[in-house]
């Protein structure tokens, strides 16, 4: 299936990627080629085959529901590119004035 530049822009929006024009063109070309290749899976009979979402080797263990100490505020914010009043700064909530 041919992936159009419009389809690329739609998927990019879903993926939160702001692509430039050259990237849109090259991704349309690459994705078309890759998706034509992976389309071969449609020829594999899979009726009644259960999907494998995860390799589980055992019942997932449960742990005791106990409070434990997490990372403190300063540690968590040490790598924050922008902090505002003790929180992560994001545009909608910051007075840019």
């Amino acid at each position, binding site marked *: 299936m041919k*992936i159009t530049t419009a*389809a*690329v822009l739609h*998927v*990019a929006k*879903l*993926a*939160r*990627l*702001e*692509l*430039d024009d050259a*990237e849109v063109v*090259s*991704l349309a070309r*690459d*994705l078309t*080629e*890759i*998706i034509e*290749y*992976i389309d*071969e*899976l*449609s020829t*594999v009979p*899979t009726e009644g*085959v*259960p*999907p*494998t*979402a*995860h*390799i*589980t*080797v*055992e019942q*997932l*263990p449960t*742990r005791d529901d106990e409070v434990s100490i997490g*990372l403190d505020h300063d*540690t*968590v914010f*040490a*790598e*924050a*590119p*922008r902090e505002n009043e003790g929180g*992560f*700064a*994001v*545009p*909608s909530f910051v007075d840019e004035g």
Partner: protein
Amino acid sequence: MIDLGVPASEIADHVRDGEWSAEAVTRASLEAIRGREDLNAFLHVADDVALETAREIDQRRARGERLGAMAGVPVALKDALCTIDSPTTCASKILTRDGVSQKTGWRSPYDATVTSRLRNADAVLVGKTNMDEFAMGSSNENSAFGPVKNPWDPTRITGGSSGGSAAAVAAGLVPVSLGSDTGGSIRQPSALSGVVGVKPTYGRVSRHGLVAFASSLDQVGPITRDVRSSARVLEVIAGADPRDSTAARVPVGRYEEACDRPLDRLRLGVPESYFGDGVDPEVETSVREAISTLEEAGCEIVPIELPHTHYGIATYYIIATAEASSNLARFDGVRFGLRVEPAHGDLQALYGATRDAGFGPEVKRRIMLGTYVLSAGYYDAYYKKAQQVRTLIRRDFETAFGRVDVIATPTTPTPAFAIGEKSADPLAMYLGDVYTLPASLAGICALSIPCRPAKNREGRGELPVGLQLLAPSFGEERLFTLASTWEAASPARGNRPPPAGGR
């Protein structure tokens, strides 16, 4: 005289016995790393911290303390593994502050579980190795900080995505490194660089602190020059972890002891279809020679079929990219790493601009593919279909392991190719992963070990070739027994790449 080329287990024994000081071993490793900056294998070298750790280890020995299994052994970690005392970038600009240099890389507030287990075993962590960005690639050309060069021929790729980890061990800069394997990222660079690399069973090693690529596939494992060292490292890093519910509560095996066990008439399965179109004739000859040698050593050779192998490529590139598109949503410019803030824009604009500037082309391609296959209208045709074919691939192995104990294949169809040869053709790059993907999708354990090298047809000397051995889930002991048997007879035994400038 300290020789970093001896097995890690011997280095640890020398340090425990006081014959070698951890500091001297560490200095030798740091000096070797500095001498091979041309390989671009390291993104960060922890000189001061490593020397301090080494001196503490020596002091503890002097006080009569019993040292751990990795006493004084220099270890390099793939830069996808979190370290509290050095940057972690995944070779991506998005995990840097300035969008340019790994020197401004993200500082993790915690160690990965494998990192702390190595520290507890008295290993010396000397640095972080280069890789394909977010472990997405098979050639290390997708690093934001330049490709790693193959120590056997610097015009060639060293494989990926754990390329720096494989090259560092191959060139003798460290005796041990850790990589991560999602679709072959430990085994393939190990094969192309001429070292031993183990992809443990899914769930054998904790993934806590491994930056996630595809959570149902990712697994951490050792890269070393010899089999016994890999066995020792796996014993140190394996086992259940309260911080990773997928780390299985299955007892850790006696992997090092398994290296000394007799072969005991193992049934070795050989899928003939793995020697068909696309495999390099020298790779085929080399792997077949290894299989014959193992037959002479007592293995019974059983022809098997893994009929869905070919579909592993499409299946993997749907499942892995779908999981990646979700996992990489966390890189948003808000909590850590790069932030690119448009002059006028809302939160969506901040996300979009940060992610466009921070991710490289292959990561974007995979996020786009993964988002596409998960999007409305395509989910059943791609994602669900791939999960069903994944079941068929698992069944291939279940059937095969009903008749054989271990399966032997080539690790890669060809030896290392030239840097740049496939970088413009992403699909051609994906097709090269055909032999390593099925084990990842089935979650079973696998390793790659050198066999007879191939002639370097466009250059001088030889290029490494890898024999891949596969065993059922939690069958690592069996892999180590068989790999040790092969290692003792292998024509690649003792091979080392030429020194810098020695070509």
